[in-house]
C-alpha cells in the first residue's frame, strides 16, 4: 500500500518534468527497460530535491504504555509533595534513594585499577561469571555442578535469560506449552508471545485469603498436557509476594513428576527475599535433588543492584554432561542472532564480588540489610493497618508475603483511587513495591489503603 502511495507521489513529481513511460512505475514491474529519467545528472538532482517519499511505516500505531515502567513515568510527572512511588521494583533506602551496593563500588574500583580490556566475550558470556552464578544457585558441592550437567549461558538479566529459554523451547519443543501463574510478572506473557510459545495459566492467587490457591494450582498443573513447561517463581513471587511452603513445594514437584512436565524457574530475588542466598534457593535445590531436568533463569538486578547492567543467566540442568554440552551449543546459536555476545561489565562485577571471599561476605551482609529493611517496613505497615482499621480485617498477609512486592488485594478501581486521591503510584493489579516504602511513610500508606479498600467499590 505504501509503495503505491509512494509511486503516485513520485510520478506526480516527475510528471512535471517529462511524461513517464507507463511501465516504469508499475508495482512489481520486473522487466529491464531504458528509463528516460537516467539521462542527465543535473536533471536528476532537481527531481530529487522535490520528490517526497511516503514512509512505509504509515500504519504503525503508538504502542500502549508499559504497565509497570509507565507507572514511574506518571510518578515523575506528579508535582504533589505527598507522592509515593510504589511502582517499579527497584530497591530504595529509607531515604528513598537508589542504592549502589558498597561491594559493587569496590569491585568497579578494582576493575578500573586492573585496566581490563573490552574485548568481546564469547557468545556464552564470561566464564568466571558462569561458574560462580551456577554455584551460587545450586551450591558449589551440588552433584549437578560436580558432574558438569548444567549448561549455563550469561544472559541479559532475567528478561534476556527467560527469552533465550523460551526461544529454545520453541525450537526444540515446538508442540509444548508453557504454564504461567495467575497472576505473574507482566513481561512473562510478552516473552512467551514473542518467542511464539503458547501458554496458559494455572491458578495461584486466592483473593479471599490474599494467599496461595494451592489446590487450584495443583489441579491446573495436573490438567495441562503432559510435558508442559511450568514456570515457577523460585522465591518472592512477583507480583503477589506469596510463596509455597516447603511441604507445598514437594507436592508441586509430585504433580510435575506425575505429568512429566519440565520445571522452569525464574529466580530474580535470590538472597533478596529472606536475606539468605541458600534459603532462597530452597525450591530450585529441592527439584534438583529429586532428579528433574529443569531450566532456571537468574537475575542480579535486585540482589546486587545491577539493574541497568543487565546481568543474569540461563541454566539448564540436564541428565548428562553430554546433553548439557549440546544444549549449551544450541543456546549460543539462539543468542548469536540476538546480540552476538553479552555485555561484559555487569558480569565482571558479579564474578569479582562472588569470587572474592571478603567481598562475598560483605555482599551477604548488605543483602541482609536490604531484606531486613523490607521486613521492617512490612512489620510497620502491618502494625499501622491493624491499629487504624477498625473493621477487624486480617492484614497479616502483609507479614506472610515475602520479597519486594505485596499484593494488597486492592482491585483496579481501588488502585486508581490510591493514585488519584493519595498520589500513591502502584500497578493496577494492586501490587505495591515495598522497596519504595520508608518507615516514615507507612502511616500515610496505611491510611490510603484503608480508605481505598473500604470506600471504593
Amino acid at each position, binding site marked *: 500500500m505504501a509503495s503505491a502511495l509512494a509511486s503516485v507521489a513520485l510520478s506526480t513529481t516527475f510528471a512535471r518534468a517529462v511524461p513517464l513511460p507507463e511501465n516504469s512505475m508499475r508495482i512489481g514491474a520486473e522487466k529491464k527497460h531504458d528509463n528516460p529519467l537516467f539521462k542527465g545528472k543535473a536533471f536528476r538532482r532537481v527531481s530529487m530535491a522535490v520528490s517526497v517519499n511516503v514512509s512505509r511505516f504509515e500504519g504503525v500505531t503508538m504502542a500502549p504504555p508499559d504497565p509497570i515502567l509507565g507507572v514511574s513515568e506518571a510518578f515523575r510527572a506528579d508535582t504533589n509533595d505527598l507522592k509515593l512511588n510504589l511502582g517499579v521494583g527497584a530497591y530504595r533506602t529509607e531515604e528513598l534513594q*537508589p542504592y549502589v551496593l558498597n561491594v559493587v563500588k569496590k569491585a568497579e574500583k578494582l576493575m578500573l585499577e586492573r585496566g581490563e580490556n573490552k574485548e568481546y566475550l564469547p557468545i556464552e558470556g564470561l566464564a568466571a561469571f558462569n561458574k560462580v552464578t551456577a554455584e551460587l544457585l545450586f551450591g558449589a558441592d551440588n552433584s549437578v555442578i560436580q558432574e558438569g550437567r548444567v549448561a549455563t549461558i550469561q544472559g541479559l538479566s532475567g528478561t534476556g535469560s527467560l527469552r533465550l529459554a523460551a526461544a529454545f523451547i520453541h525450537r526444540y519443543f515446538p508442540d509444548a506449552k508453557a504454564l504461567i501463574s495467575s497472576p505473574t510478572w507482566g513481561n512473562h506473557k510478552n516473552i512467551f508471545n514473542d518467542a511464539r510459545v503458547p501458554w496458559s495459566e494455572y491458578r495461584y492467587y486466592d483473593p479471599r485469603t490474599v494467599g496461595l490457591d494451592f489446590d487450584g494450582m495443583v489441579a491446573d498443573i495436573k490438567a495441562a498436557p503432559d510435558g508442559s513447561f511450568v514456570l515457577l517463581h523460585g522465591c518472592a513471587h512477583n507480583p503477589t509476594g506469596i510463596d509455597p511452603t516447603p511441604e507445598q513445594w514437594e507436592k508441586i514437584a509430585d504433580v510435575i513428576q506425575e505429568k512429566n512436565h519440565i520445571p522452569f524457574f525464574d529466580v530474580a530475588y535470590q538472597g533478596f527475599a529472606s536475606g539468605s542466598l541458600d534459603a532462597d534457593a530452597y525450591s530450585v535445590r529441592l527439584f534438583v535433588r529429586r532428579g528433574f531436568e529443569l531450566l532456571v533463569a537468574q537475575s542480579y538486578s535486585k540482589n546486587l543492584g545491577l539493574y541497568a547492567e543487565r546481568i543474569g543467566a540461563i541454566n539448564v540442568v540436564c541428565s*548428562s554432561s553430554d546433553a548439557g554440552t549440546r544444549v549449551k551449543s*544450541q543456546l549460543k546459536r539462539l543468542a548469536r542472532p540476538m546480540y552476538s555476545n553479552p555485555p561484559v561489565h555487569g558480569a565482571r562485577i558479579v564474578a569479582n564480588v562472588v569470587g572474592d571471599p571478603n567481598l562475598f561476605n560483605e555482599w551477604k551482609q548488605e543483602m541482609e540489610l536490604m531484606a531486613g529493611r523490607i521486613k521492617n517496613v512490612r512489620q510497620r505497615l502491618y502494625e499501622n493497618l491493624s491499629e487504624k482499621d477498625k473493621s477487624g480485617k486480617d492484614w497479616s498477609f502483609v507479614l506472610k508475603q515475602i520479597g519486594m512486592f505485596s499484593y494488597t488485594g486492592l482491585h483496579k478501581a481501588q488502585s486508581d483511587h490510591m493514585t488519584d486521591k493519595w498520589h500513591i503510584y502502584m500497578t493496577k493489579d494492586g501490587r505495591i513495591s515495598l522497596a519504595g516504602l520508608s518507615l516514615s511513610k507507612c502511616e500515610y500508606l496505611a491510611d490510603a489503603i484503608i480508605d481505598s479498600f473500604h470506600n471504593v467499590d
Partner: protein
Amino acid sequence: MAAISREILKRRGIHRSPVMATIGTRSMASWFGHVEPAAKDPILGVTEAFLADPSPDKVNVGVGAYRDDNGKPVVLECVREAERRIAGNLNMEYLPMGGSIKMIEESLKLAYGEDSELIKEKRIAAVQALSGTGACRLFADFQKRFLPDTQIYIPIPTWANHHNIWRDACVPQRTFRYYHPETRGLDFASMMDDIKNAPNGSFFLLHACAHNPTGVDPSEEQWREISYQFKVKNHFPFFDMAYQGFASGDPNRDAKAIRIFLEDGHLIGCAQSYAKNMGLYGQRVGCLSILCDDELQAVAVKSQLQQLARPMYSNPPVHGALVVSIILGDPELKSLWLKEVKGMADRIIGMRKALRENLEKLGSPLSWEHITNQIGMFCYSGMTPEQVDRLTDEFHIYMTRNGRISMAGVTTGNAGYLANAIHEVTKSS
C-alpha cells in the same frame, strides 16, 4: 511428549540411548536427547583454534577486533577517561526502555550530521541497541511485525550473522550481487541489475562503509547512482554502519553514503555500532534509527521498537552507553576520540601498504592492489579455502576460510612473515 523424545532417541541408535540420572529418587531419560550439537561459529571458531595453538609464530588475522602494533587489544584513552568519570556513579537504575537519551542524541548527530534538520524536526525514531547485532535484529523483528510481506536483500557476500539475524526474525531473504572475484572489487553492473530487477519497494541491506568481509565499497559516484535507482524503484535502504570513523579515519567521510541518500530524500534505517570505532566490543552498545515522515510517526515507531525490546532484554545495558555519551558530549574527549580513531584507521591503512609492498617485493605473479584498494578492517584476499588451510597448517596463520584477512591483526612485526606465507601458498596459482 516423553514418548516423542524416546522415539527420536530410539532412531538414533545405541550410542544415543538415554543416559539415566544417577542421583535423586528416580532415574529418567533426558528431555534433550534430540538436541544436536551446534556447528561452530565460523568466525569465533577461528580464534578458539588460534588460542589452542602453541606455536610461537602464530598469527591471528581472524576475528575483527582491533590490535595495536604489538598485537595487543586496545582500550582508547578517551574511554579510560570516561570510565574514570563514571566510577562511583551513584545511579545504576534502569535506563528508560529506549535506552540512554544522551547517547541516542549523540549517535544521531554522528550518523545524520551534526546540524541535521532531520534531528531538529524530531523525525528520527531511535533506540539504544545491543551493538550492531542488536540493532539489526530489532529492525528485522520490526520489519516482520509491521511489514510482514517484505523480505530483505542481502549482498553476496556479507557478514555471516546477517543471515542468522533475518532468519531468526523469520524475514525471508534474497541476495544481490556485490563482490567481483576476478577484480577483487565491486561488481557494480550486476549490483545495479539486481537492484533494478527486484520488485519495487524491496528492502535492501547496505554496508555504509568498509564492507565486511570484502573491504570493497562503492565510490561516491556509484553511491549516487545506487541512491537514484533506489528512488526509481522505491526501495528501502537499511544501512549497517559498524565502522564509522574506522574506515577512512574521518567519521563524516565514512557516513557519505548515508548523507547522499538523505540528500536524495530517502527514508532510511540505520544500525550503528561502537564496538570497533570506540573499542567497546564487549560493552554491546549501538543505536538503531529509522527516519520517519514526521515527529508523530517517529514517536509511534520508537514506541513499537521499545515494545519489541521489552520481551528480549527489557532495557539495554547502561555502562557502554554512559561511556559513549560522555565522550561524544564533551568537546575535549570527542577531539581525543577523533584523534584516536584516526590513529587506528591510519595504522590499518599503513599495514595494507606494507603487506602489498612485501608481496610485490617477493615477486608474486599475482596482483595485490586490491589490498590497498579495499578499506576498513578486512581484506578479501582472493585466496581459496585450500590455500587458507595451508596457511594455518604450515604457517600457523589463522583466518576465516573465505580468505578474509583482518588487517587489524597485521603488525610491522608480522607483515613480512604473513606476506611470505601468502606468497608461498599462492605463487603457483
